[in-house]
């Protein structure tokens, strides 16, 4: 019931869409974007796979259970806040990490990034759970 066109497009667009979602995630710090919309885009990519190849195929692409993904994301986001608490700052105080990686000097990672990453995982997990659940049963 899926056409050749849809399957081809789905195959081509998967990586592109996922890449774009990562772009949105990292650019979300001080440009439009962020964890929520990036997660939605990533979930849309996987939902397209589910539409084209069936839910089982799409589910195999996500190595872990969707609810676990969401829970881990929530843990990461909450953990970012707690980290500030542990360091003696008020909850959710953001910090900036300077790294000097080989071939990539002066990387700046904000703690807000990890919060966003958590949001990303939560959104991907929840959307996939709802949509797979609705389509499967």
């Amino acid at each position, binding site marked *: 019931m899926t056409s050749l066109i849809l399957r081809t497009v789905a195959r081509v667009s998967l990586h592109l869409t996922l890449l774009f979602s990562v772009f949105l995630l990292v650019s979300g710090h001080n440009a439009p974007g962020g964890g929520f919309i990036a997660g939605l885009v990533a979930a849309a990519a996987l939902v397209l796979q589910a539409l084209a190849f069936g839910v089982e195929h799409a589910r195999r692409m996500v190595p872990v259970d969707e*609810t676990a993904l969401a829970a881990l994301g*929530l*843990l990461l986001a909450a953990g970012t806040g707690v980290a500030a608490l542990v360091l003696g700052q*008020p*909850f959710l*105080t953001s910090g900036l990490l300077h790294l000097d990686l080989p071939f990539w000097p002066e990387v700046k990672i904000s703690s807000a990034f990890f919060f966003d990453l958590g949001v990303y995982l939560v959104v991907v997990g929840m959307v996939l759970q709802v949509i797979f659940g609705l389509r499967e049963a």
Partner: protein
Amino acid sequence: MSSPLVFLPVLLPLLGGIVLWLARRSLGVGRWGSLALAAVTLGVEVALLGLVRARGVQVMFAGGWVPPFGITLVVDLTSAIMLVVSGIVGLCVLGHAVQTLDPDRERHGFYALYQFLFMGINGAFVTGDIFNLFVFFEVMLIASYALVSLGSEPGQLRGGVHYLVTNLVSSTLFVAAVGTLYGLAGTLNLADLAVKVARAPDPAVFTIPAAVFIVVFGVKSALFPLYFWLPASYPAAPLPVTAVFAGMLTKVGVYAVLRVFSLVFTHDPGYLHAALLVVAGFTMLLGVLGAVGYDNWKRILSVHIVSQVGYMIMGIGFLSVAGLAAAIFFIVHQILVKTALFLIAGLAERATGAYDLGEMGGLAGRYPVMASLFMVAGLSLAGVPPLSGFFGKFLLIRAGLAQGEVAVVAVAIVVSFFTLYSMMKIWRYAFWGEEKPAGLRPVPAALYLPAAALVAFSVVLGLGGEALLVLSQQAAAQLLDGTAYVMAVLGAR
């Protein structure tokens, strides 16, 4: 006073809930883990109450952002009292749940959802701005939607849909009211709002969002005429869920009314608080009349929630230290006793397998402990001295008479008799008469423990109510004055 302790009642259930969700397949971890978590949360809340009593209002600014920017969490005496009560209820109901729930519900994440529910409840108690009140309401409601429909029995589904849709409409209105308020005041921080409303050149405009807030919180706390969703949905859920909903959820709505209409919207008591009094009168009366017609234990108690909420709103409507103190006292009493009554209904269900009063009888002979627990809790609910309900109602009535609000006080007294009648009805059908049904089952002693603990609290509140009364008077004075709250939040500037 800035203290990291302020956030722990929200953070602990959140982190614990995630862990419990990940480990939801293991019953042992779920039961013992959630019990331990609830106990630790209660401990933190008691410590917080002590801290607030000793050192005044505690605040926390998330991310170090100073108000009115950023997220502020504030714990004053009222919040601290509510937190402690929520901790007690959380622990006791959980103690009942681990013994009675079916493993299927437990494996589907009951314990995690339960913790998320308390995250929302506690968050609503500690939040310092009105938008986060909305957010924590939603956290609480989403967890409660999931708890209501967990298991997907037909009755639960119908009730769940009613509950969900009604509450969503009220959330929508909440957002609209917040929008109006932000447009008028330019801030959503409660302390800042209190200052802005008090200093506004034309405070009458704030009556518009305030009136919408009455509707919004009216749905959440099941006020007249917006209580129709409650009898449809509460009895449908499994008993521990109904018990914690009955105890806490509507009271979070009442707390929101208490906070917003004593700290922020005090500019127009002739209209807003008079409206609250009218609503309170009808809520008391119609709630208790609705209960008369039912003969299902869970339903009678559920409809009674509506009636009791009316008393609390009445206390808030007086807008005096005596009235607010009485309302706080009554809320504490009500949460403990109502939860206890539901847990006792659970005991009776364990013994008879039913909630219908027609299907049980003569329990007093076989289960004397259950009967005496019900006797104490039921009389306390009806307001018979020397139990806590009597003092709660007495304080409310005295506060009302002091202000000459005779009509609503008269309603409150009449409603008390009807409440007594309902309790006597349960007593007569369930505990007196012939013993039935034939195959009564034994009730394990450990199952009595949570209900007994709650009833004991009620007795202590009645006999030694002085301490709580003083505490709630201090809390009410703090609420009505507002200076301590505002200073604690905005003083850091």
